[in-house]
């Protein structure tokens, strides 16, 4: 456990000045800020909406961008970055000749990538709530304060996190094995596009494909709005135990363990 904590701290120390680390802060800020100004400019069109609808549109717009393309690609990038830092500096041989177990080195790296994903999603949640409320303060006609979205939104982001774990494990392993940029990033990008298509065309087995999970999650949150007999006020339901989440968790755990055995057997060239 000590080795894990030391390695985790070292991961933070090493990456704190890199793009990987700052992208997890800048990305949510940029997207939320952009939508904030969009809503502020068009606030006259929104003043008659009830608080719930305002939140649905504001948070929904952010989630829509996030879930489809940005979250999978961010994870592809994070998984690549935490491994590439060692490929680039040729430090794998040093890391594995330190008196720290291979398990600690490997798992600390994985959990650090997971930690960055969590930070990013938490900031998305925080900025969504913050900028939403700020819109309400700057223009009191926008009744954001009418409805409390915090709990629901937190659940949505938690589900989004669970839905992205499969991608994280697969990308982490790819980035660990391939030192070049193109293979993990190319595969990740192609698979993300494939996932978007699968989820959008509503393919029956899309839930088996990890890269489709974030978008499936977004789509599952607003089922009643998607339905034909939509009620006047849509319902938001967050069901954690959907098939895609189960698959995501199984893939995440299986690939993570498989990765460890590969590290254990692999020679450090």
């Amino acid at each position: 456990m000590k080795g894990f904590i030391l390695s985790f701290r070292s991961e933070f120390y090493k990456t704190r000045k890199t793009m990987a680390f700052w992208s997890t802060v800048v990305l949510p800020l940029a997207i939320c800020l952009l939508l904030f100004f969009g809503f502020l400019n068009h606030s006259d069109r929104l003043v008659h909406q009830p608080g719930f609808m305002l939140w649905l549109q504001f948070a929904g717009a952010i989630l829509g961008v996030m879930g489809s393309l940005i979250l999978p690609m961010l994870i592809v990038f994070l998984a690549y970055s935490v491994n590439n830092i060692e490929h680039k500096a040729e430090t794998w041989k040093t890391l594995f000749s330190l008196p720290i177990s291979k398990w600690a080195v490997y798992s600390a790296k994985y959990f650090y990538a997971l930690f960055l994903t969590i930070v990013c999603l938490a900031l998305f949640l925080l900025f969504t709530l913050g900028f939403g409320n700020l819109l309400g303060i700057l223009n009191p006609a926008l009744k954001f304060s009418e409805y409390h979205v915090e709990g629901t939104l937190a659940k949505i982001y938690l589900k989004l996190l669970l839905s992205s774990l499969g991608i994280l494990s697969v990308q982490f392993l790819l980035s660990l094995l391939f030192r070049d940029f193109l293979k993990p990033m190319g595969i990740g990008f192609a698979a993300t596009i494939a996932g978007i298509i699968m989820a959008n065309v509503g393919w029956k087995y899309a839930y088996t494909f990890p890269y489709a999970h974030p978008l499936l999650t977004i789509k599952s949150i607003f089922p009643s709005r998607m339905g034909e007999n939509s009620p006047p006020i849509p319902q938001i339901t967050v069901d954690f135990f959907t098939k895609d989440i189960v698959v995501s968790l199984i893939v995440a755990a299986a690939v993570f363990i498989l990765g460890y055995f590969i590290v254990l057997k692999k020679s450090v060239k």
Partner: protein
Amino acid sequence: MVIDTQGLSFHFGNQQVVKSLSLQVPEGSIYGFLGPNGAGKTTTIKLLLNLLKTDQGSIRIFGKDLVTNRISILSQIGSLIEQPAIYSHLSGRENLINRALLLQVPESRVDEMLKLVRLKEAANKKAGKYSLGMKQRLGIALALLPDPQLLILDEPTNGLDPNGIIEVRELLIRLVNQHKKTVFVSSHLLAEVERMATHVGIIDKGELLFQGSIKDLEAISQPQVQIEVDTTVDVANFLKKHGFTVTDISEDHLTVPFSSKEQMGEINTLLNKNNYQVYSIHKIQKDLEKLFLDITQKA
């Protein structure tokens, strides 16, 4: 023995890189691990650090089996393999702090190391902007940071200027003499190791061709008598007529195998009596560089 390997073998694909290597590195020694490029030095070092899995044979370090005591053994080793592994986006100091963090070494030790390898001034400069020599010195500082009992250095003087080479050499000698460390240092240049090594292992094509103390190595080289004269060809013919073997001849000197001091005196007298002026006559050991070449080329 600090390092003791028995029948160590390793192959990449079909290529046998290390062949039944039995290394014996005594405590408190500077062991020069010599061989031409591609002889299997780095592979051997990676085997010693458990980075590569041994095909056959065993490795014992500090008297313990490496595979079953990996972490406790590695905690007493500092290593530098091939080109130093340095995070180029971090400064020299940050590279050391990161390692100190991992090894739970106090931060004060970082400054000590920076001073030791003379990187104090450049400590806050990005390591990516360091010259090759500075990177190498940072690599040595990283290896020394945990104050290890055994230092394993792969070509540590690569890229260093003559001053840097002398400094590293003196540092290693000091570590062994004053701090009772053991140093295992690989090189493809004998001259570099000759002046500090107490023990030598010579490897070529994965095979250990010689192992022993530096004195053993010198002993197997035949001593010679080097005679400096004006007319080397005439003198050589003259000596041959008198039953001496001339092994080497150049413009200003010739060499004859050494057998005894008396023989040296006899040659001197003989030449003087026959009006050959002798500028100098003395015993020499065969150049270790030549010896090294002989050993590696014979294989």
